[in-house]
């Protein structure tokens, strides 16, 4: 899952980005409202973490413009403003959640999981595809009851495919949701990682869950 963090206070932005990357997210950061808005409009983020007091364009203005142009990206407002009118204004402008600074990082992760779950219409943190189980909170994967050890990138790929289960997902989409700008993936990296994933998930099982759609992309699901 790829998120955009718009926060101007550098020490906070740095540690948040680190924590989010360690939690398996692809993270882009921006320190002002104008750049943040441009990034948000140019990339299909799964969620945006948005500060309110920002240089050039404040967070509420970013949110307003984003929603005015029809963007449905999940937006989680992070603000030092704890007064009721601010919280109400943030939510009414189209924020999916509002978190008052200082917050517990665990809570931020849980809320982020929640807004992304809602975006992909997943009812809970446990996503099941046939006998494959993916625990979004623990980032643990089991097939037929046996745990599967995945690298961070493999997990991110599987998570995205699972969120869009039974849909054909293009390589471009995978690239956009699994990598951030810092990653600069090679052109065939998606195919390589799908190969790794297929080996770990499907090998030794009768039914295959990861399917290749020639010329289109990949899908995760029970065979059609």
């Amino acid at each position, binding site marked *: 899952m790829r998120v955009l963090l718009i926060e101007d*206070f550098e020490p906070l932005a740095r540690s948040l980005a680190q924590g989010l990357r360690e939690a398996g997210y692809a993270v882009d950061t921006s320190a002002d409202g104008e750049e943040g808005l441009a990034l948000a409009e140019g990339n299909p983020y799964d969620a945006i973490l948005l500060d309110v007091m920002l240089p050039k364009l*404040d967070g509420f203005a970013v949110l307003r413009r984003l929603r005015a142009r029809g963007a449905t990206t999940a937006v989680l407002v992070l603000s030092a403003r704890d*007064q009721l009118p601010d919280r109400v204004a943030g939510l009414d402008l189209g924020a999916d959640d509002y978190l008052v600074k200082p917050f517990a*990082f665990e809570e931020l992760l849980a809320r982020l999981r929640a807004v992304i779950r809602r975006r992909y219409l997943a009812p809970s943190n446990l996503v099941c595809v046939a006998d494959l189980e993916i625990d979004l909170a623990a980032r643990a994967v089991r097939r037929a009851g046996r745990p599967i050890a995945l690298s961070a990138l493999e997990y991110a790929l599987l998570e995205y495919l699972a969120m869009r289960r039974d849909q054909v997902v293009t390589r471009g989409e995978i690239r956009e949701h699994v990598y951030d700008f810092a990653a600069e993936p090679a052109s065939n990296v998606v195919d390589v990682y799908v190969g790794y994933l297929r080996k770990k998930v499907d090998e030794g099982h009768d039914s295959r869950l990861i399917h290749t759609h020639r010329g289109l992309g990949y899908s995760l699901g029970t065979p059609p």
Partner: protein
Amino acid sequence: MRSLGFRLTAAVVLVLAGVLAAFAVVTHLVLERALVRQLDLRLAGSAAAIAGMAEDEAGGAEFEAESLPEFERAARPGYFQAWLDDGRVLARSPSLGACDLPRLGGAGSAPVHADLRLPDGRPGRAIQLRQALRIEDAPPGAPPSKRFVTVVAAVGTEDARETLAAVSRWLWLLGATAFATAAGATLVVVRRGLRPARAVAAQLDALDAAGIGNPIPTAGLPTEIAPIVSKLNELLARLAASFARERRFTADVSHELRTPLSALRTTLEVAAAQDRPATAYRAALADATALAVQMQALVGNLLLLARLDARQIPVAAEAVDLRRLVEDCWRPFAAEAGERRLRLTIQLPADCAVVSDPEKLRIVVTNLLANATAYTAPGGSITVRGGSAETLLEVADSGPPIPEDLLPRIFDRFSRGDAARSGGVHCGIGLALVRGVCALLGLDASAANTPDGGVRFRLTRPA
């Protein structure tokens, strides 16, 4: 507390009681005098009639008694006695028996009235009359008799006193009734008259912090109360403005503290979330320390500002080497200025000494240099001048200029060149501190955009 209503009522009731008592006393006196005069007139009539019964009869005097029921009855009778000038008693009323009435003194013929005690012990009123004896069958125009009779007639005053007592009773009764009615009415009227005052008090009572900005309506208030209420409204408006300022300041302080606190917490939580090499922990701890130092500086500035507000700071006056002070203050900013390719020029005489408080001046210079370092565009220059008679110090930079709409508010708390600069020395109270400390040092702090597109902060001594 004695209420206005109680005082007004008490005053009116006291005045009323005095007036009613005076009225009763005067009425009593007037009535008494009228009754006495009436009695005297009756006595004069009786005495004249009695005197008329004494006749001059060929050198002798004769009393031809006629029926006088008042002097003959058994119960509460009147008394009279008549004397000739030689002292011989001519006649006595039957009620007198063998007793004598006292002569009332005076030998003239003018009637004399006096109070006295009657022979039977009752209090009475008497008249003494002296007139010439009547001459029987005297032709009109004949000279009057040369001989005189003196009559003293006395009657009891009980009738008059009973009348007076009855009237007094009525006066008391009426007075008391009038007093009670008027006092009650006054109480009601005063209470009703003070109702607007109580209504205003109730409205004030119901005011809370949220409603303090809403004025109390003055329409329909009596002219005595309306000016008080409108003054009160002015006071409330000032209070509300002050509360709003305080709330804004608190919100700003809260924001300024929450942001670094949030970074501190996230840094520590993320660092502790998984096992790392020692260098990673050290880096996280260094970040945390920097944040703590930043918050400490902010808290220190806030406390200083609060003490400035409370005027609790003593001011020293000693010789300060201005050049060395500026160089000392610049040291913490040298690294950041180097990163941003800012050039500092100090144009101060080598032995530039001023008399001031070095610690306070250090706060001022530090904040001005921090501001210049933070806001001057990369590659620009910062120039410090001063030491002249009127300008103590001037910090000029190469810009960009301060937006014109912000310039008048630049020294206010939390008014920032950029709405979202957070943390550190330039946390929106730096320039407020500059102004506060300058006021303490007797200096004027001013900011202006220069024609060449730069910004100039100047500390001047007022003329």
